[in-house]
């Protein structure tokens, strides 16, 4: 698989075209780490909070990585689930991606607000939250893998 960004030579100079195949998944979900680490690059924040996952992703975006999946994926509300998995490009682009930044900042606002809510998530349903989070990030894999395939 080719990774990184293609550089397209045009008459007006060089410009970036497409982020390609290579991606990483930032997660605090042990089930995602277990299930996907073998096949993909997974950055596992063990015992990390959903907020810490977002901070990690935000810092990557600041370092010019591009956000590939919606940070608030799923309709399980951020104040319900402790798990979050986000896909980010493995390699940096040439500039900070404004859309990625906008999305992560808005998502973090929602998360910040949600932490004012009472947290009573029970361990017995932990595994179900993990399964749903895994399913959400898995739903992005076919699209992510399709790119760069010729």
């Amino acid at each position, binding site marked *: 698989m080719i990774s990184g960004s293609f550089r397209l030579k045009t008459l007006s100079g060089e410009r970036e075209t497409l982020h390609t195949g290579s991606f990483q998944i930032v997660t605090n979900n042990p089930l995602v780490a277990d299930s996907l680490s073998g096949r993909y690059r997974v950055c596992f924040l063990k015992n990390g909070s959903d907020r810490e996952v977002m901070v990690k992703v935000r*810092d990557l975006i*600041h*370092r*010019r990585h591009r956000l590939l999946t919606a940070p608030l994926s799923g309709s399980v509300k951020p104040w319900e689930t402790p798990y979050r998995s986000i896909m980010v490009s493995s390699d940096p682009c040439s500039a*900070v991606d*404004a859309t990625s*930044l*906008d999305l992560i900042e808005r998502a973090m606002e929602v998360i910040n607000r949600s932490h004012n809510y009472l947290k009573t998530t029970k361990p017995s349903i932990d595994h179900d939250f993990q399964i749903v989070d895994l399913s959400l990030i898995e739903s992005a894999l076919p699209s992510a893998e399709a790119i760069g395939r010729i």
Partner: protein
Amino acid sequence: MVKEIERAGIPVVHICTVTPISLTVGANRIVPAVAIPHPLGNPELSPGDEYELRRKLVDKALRALMTEVDDQTVFDS
């Protein structure tokens, strides 16, 4: 914040890494910065080179302040 200061009658140059955001918040004179964690620096450079980089950005900002604009303008060269 850019808008409130400019509205009060003082010209503002906004040094900002992500220019689309600067455009959204309504800055009129915009100078693109280096990176979010270090808008006016680059830790990979030697201290001398980093100062030089910052000096050039400040020059650009001062030039922007001395330039008449009638619309939002990005000073990127």
